[in-house]
């Protein structure tokens, strides 16, 4: 299966995060901080991580998790793990 390009990937990730975090896609700005601006708690963050792993069949290392603080961080991480593998 050919890999998705980054724009496609971003769109899918945004949708996934928006659904789990119950934040509208408009509100979910790339730089908005998950906890402080969007009220995403650690349990939701874990759900987001598990869903990304399942969807893209990858493993997000535990030490990377604390670095995920905004949608942009998610994009960067997925770019690193998914597109460059």
């Amino acid at each position, binding site marked *: 299966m050919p890999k998705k390009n980054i724009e496609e990937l971003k769109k899918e990730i945004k949708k996934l995060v928006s659904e789990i975090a119950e934040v509208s896609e408009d509100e979910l700005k790339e730089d908005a901080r998950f906890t402080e601006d969007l009220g995403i708690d*650690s*349990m939701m963050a*874990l*759900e987001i991580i*598990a869903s990304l792993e399942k969807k893209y069949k990858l493993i997000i290392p535990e030490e990377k*998790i604390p670095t995920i603080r905004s949608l942009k961080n998610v994009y960067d991480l997925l770019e690193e793990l998914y597109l460059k593998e």
Partner: protein
Amino acid sequence: MDETWDINKIQQILPQKYPFLFIDSVIDINKQEKKVACLKNVTINDYFFEGHFPNNPVMPGALIIEAMAQASIILYAVLKPGVAEKHPDYYLGKVEAKFLKPVRVGDQLILEVSGEKILGNAGIVKAQAKVLNEIVAEAEIVFGVKPKE
């Protein structure tokens, strides 16, 4: 089965005690596949039947979830023995559950739990409760694990 768990080990790992201990034995462990199966024998001696309900003993759905959550702690302890042996606090974060059939006196309730994502401080599992190989309830459980201060 990768390791054996007797009732002493179950009681040592689970913070829940009588009359709130809903695991009688661990019947299967597969560390590689991140799965465990536990058993709860449902008997008329279970204290909750006194009120739920008089003359119609049905195991409360909330307690089926509790039994699943306790089986999840067993799974967690199998995968993260170093964390579990220090007796952290386990917090239920989120549960999405479905109940398909009533669980009654005399049933052997099998709780099968598989790990979706297990971390040092949290976990997500999928759980199924079965009686005679039929699914009676299923749930996705998100929980947190926090060392005692």
